[in-house]
């Protein structure tokens, strides 16, 4: 049998992060490509819960297998299957060991590693760096990630291609989003208030997303008509810390920690906001930026990481130096005073980050 493809992942459906989003969309794109080209595809997950793929809309569950956290069983089966495959795509650097073993048995199997961001830049482990040699191609989610791999791991530049993340084709069209009654009341938003929005995990271990700097900028702005909603799962330590920062800034009436938002509420939050901001310093790419822009929201992001790809170096959104409270403040003031001017160009967004465009790039890279 010719052209067997194997996509190996950690989680696809049992977690909600950016990497899982990429895996779902990549799974769909590969399924569609393989159907057209008459090639065989398997999509495996190490950690997903049993039956996690049932009723998913990305690819048929027949293509999928999960090992429910049984690492040993996953590795054993993945090495055996990988050795029979023509191409193995790893969705995470933690699967590199599997690829290394596959390559020992089947040197002709093509290994592709998807590189997202911090998970790969910070891999200082020299054993792993040696293992990079078994990878034929790297797909980096941004030029920034690509440069970091070259710098940190000495990988030949020609081995690394950029495959930017894309919009999930299942996102409902902006015109079909209704902002539910009560959403404004939920956050105590008054007529005429401007809404600034950040969606991110609030983690005491990460602390690079820049929402603390936005709070500082907000304090400096001294405007009471701005409500700042920070949504996302938060750990207790970070919640306490950020609440303290809000209290010290005297912004208890303006900054709202909204907690985890279910997927079906996200679009309404984007639609009701005036500005999305996340002056982060360690984004691999930042899918949330393109999602916010898909719903017509002007965005502000950092200029020091993969965000630059997502914002097309400032063409689609405004870029600031992360940590520079003044710059953040100025950018917020400009955007809030003239929102229409900063609405991202929809056609340009779709041409660069639409699903169709992602698939075209994927096809070229697989060639």
């Amino acid at each position, binding site marked *: *049998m*010719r052209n067997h493809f194997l996509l190996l992942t950690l989680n696809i459906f049992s977690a909600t992060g950016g990497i899982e989003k990429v895996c779902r969309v990549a799974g*769909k794109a590969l*399924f*569609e490509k393989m*159907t*057209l080209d*008459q*090639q*065989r*595809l*398997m999509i495996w997950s190490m950690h997903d819960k049993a*039956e996690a*793929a*049932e*009723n998913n*809309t990305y*690819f*048929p*569950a*027949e*293509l999928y*297998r999960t090992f429910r956290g049984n690492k040993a069983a996953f590795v054993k089966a993945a090495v055996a299957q990988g050795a029979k495959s023509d191409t193995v795509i790893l969705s995470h650097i933690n699967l590199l060991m599997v690829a290394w073993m596959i390559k020992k048995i089947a040197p002709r199997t093509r290994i592709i590693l998807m590189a997202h961001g911090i998970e790969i830049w910070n891999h200082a482990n020299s054993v792993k760096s040696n293992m990079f040699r078994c990878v034929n191609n790297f797909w980096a989610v941004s030029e920034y990630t690509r440069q970091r791999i070259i710098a940190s791991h000495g990988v030949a530049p020609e081995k690394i291609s950029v495959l930017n993340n894309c919009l999930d*084709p*299942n996102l*409902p*069209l902006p015109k*079909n989003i209704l902002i539910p009654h009560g959403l404004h009341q939920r956050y105590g938003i008054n007529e005429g208030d401007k809404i600034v929005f950040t969606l991110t995990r609030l983690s005491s271990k990460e602390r690079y997303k820049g929402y603390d700097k936005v709070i500082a900028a907000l304090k400096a702005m001294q405007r009471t008509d701005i409500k700042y909603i920070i949504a996302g799962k938060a750990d207790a330590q970070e919640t306490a810390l950020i609440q303290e920062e809000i209290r010290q800034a005297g912004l208890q009436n303006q900054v709202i920690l909204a907690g985890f938002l279910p997927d079906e509420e996200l679009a309404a939050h984007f639609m009701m906001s005036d500005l999305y901001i996340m002056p982060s310093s360690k984004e691999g790419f930042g899918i949330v930026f393109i999602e916010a822009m898909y719903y017509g929201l002007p965005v502000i992001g950092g200029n020091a990481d993969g965000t630059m790809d997502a914002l097309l170096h400032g063409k689609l959104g405004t870029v600031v130096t992360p940590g520079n409270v003044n710059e953040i403040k100025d950018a917020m003031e400009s955007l809030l005073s003239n929102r229409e001017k900063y609405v991202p160009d929809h056609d340009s967004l779709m041409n660069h980050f639409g*699903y*169709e465009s992602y*698939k*075209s790039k994927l096809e070229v890279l697989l060639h």
Partner: protein
Amino acid sequence: MCRIAGILSQQHPLQALQVSITNICAALQHGGPDDEGIWSDETAGLVLGHRRLSLLDLSSAGHQPMLYQDRYVISFNGEIYNFQQLRSELQQLGHQFRTQTDTEVILAAYEQWGTQSFARLEGMFAFALWDKTDQTLLLVRDRSGIKPLYYIHTADGIAFASETKVFQYLPQPPANNPNWPVLMLAYGHLPEPVTTYQHVVPLPKGFFLRYQQGHISLQSFGFYSFSSSEDTKATAAQNIAALLRTAVKNHLIADAPIGVFLSGGIDSGILFLLAAEQKKQGLNSLSLYFSEEKYSEKTYQDLLLQQVNCQRNQYKLEGNEFLETLPKILHDMDLPSCDGINTWFISKYAKEQGLKAVLSGIGADELLGGYPSFKRLKLAALVQQSPNLALGSKLIRGRKLSRLNYLQMEGISGLYLFLRGHFAPTDIAHQLGATEKEVWDILQSAPVLPDIQRLHPQNQASWMETNLYMQNQLLRDADVMSMAHGIEIRVPFLDHAFQSYCMSLGPAIKYDTALPKGLLIEAFKKELPEPVWNRPKMGFSFPFTEWFAESSFVKETMNEGSELQQKNYQQFLTGDLHWSQLLSLMIIQQQHPVYA
């Protein structure tokens, strides 16, 4: 249900494209006797064609290709069973409708939800939708692949149609696919994506194709997968009964007369009884029976008919009529198939009764375990994985046993060909003057199917019967043979909610009964007369062996062929070749130079 076609090309003058589509529409007239429409966009180099069989809004308002808001144009074949719900929803969103058709609902839904609208459509459909503003052509096919849609994409552009034969009328007809006879003899049909032409392929079910500025991309919008609900057997039987009742109700919506095929078996019997519940008056039943007693199911048909007050149409099909008609049936076939003759006759009678649509029981056997493969696949898979198989199969020479050879093939294709294969690889090589290696190479190259070994063996059988036998044989035969008479076949067992529910039931609930389709029987035990479900299994229910042997057409065709064909005919007469195998060899002789 209708017939559609179209070409989008900048390489030929518009007039040449229009001539092509006019010829194609003329060739497709049988499937759309009520109206014809051709629509062109000169700047884009696009011509869309449509032959209409009208079932909803019989007025000229339903004319196609249909233009919507001066932006979208559609050529649509099929039925959307939930169109009234979608229509109300769209009305609430501010859409206004000019017609009572489902066609207009597809357009409004696309306007509202874009390509995400396709997942909301429940029914059988294949359509082409042109967006004048974006200069984009979309081809869309339902998620069970009930309606056919074939296309060819070349540097010239793209062309599509409901049948493959009409691609010969393109300005540049496609080249023949030299490999098809091998697959035909192995499968008894051509498995998707194979056709008799090179580069002419079906749009995969549940996919849409987008064509813009010479570039095509395919995207999936829906598929059926097995899942695992926790319903008990009793709940499952209740739900199945309720869902099928709703499905039948929705499938009866039409502004033209509609009937039910009644074979005498369980599936059509249930559909017939449910249709009778819905339609107290004016229900038409259609059945065939034979003077050859051993093939006749008339006893069971009569038992069912006794329960219901309906317009009975029972036809006695005689050998003479069959013999006279056989050449016409072969002519009406699109892609080669070793079956479908029964559908041709029953559709002919439906047409004579003035019906336009008929319900058929396709899908029940596949979803609920009606075939022997549900019992046999597990053992076959064990043999397939046995290391001694390759050695053993070399020693096997008998025709029946030589199908064991197919178990050397990996995966579900190998199992299918072992369980349902038409000719064994050695026989195919012999028939086509090829080497066995050449035959194996072609069989390995297509179709490429997913590895489904991980599924429960009975779900594997269900997947195999649904995606190979039903998809490539039953649904295709049903479509082409009914369309030959301008009749629409509707398949309530493939209703979206019903099929999704069946696929969500665990194998132990769905199949674990002493009787095939035990759960379906359980669900309708009160309604279905016991002799219909509790009776000895009948084999194939047409007396074709006798009739083929009497046919001068068959005799002449075979004797006009090569020496090998003449020998094949003798083998058929002595009982060493099945009638369906003979039929396949005749078709190859007619369409391929190998026996010339």
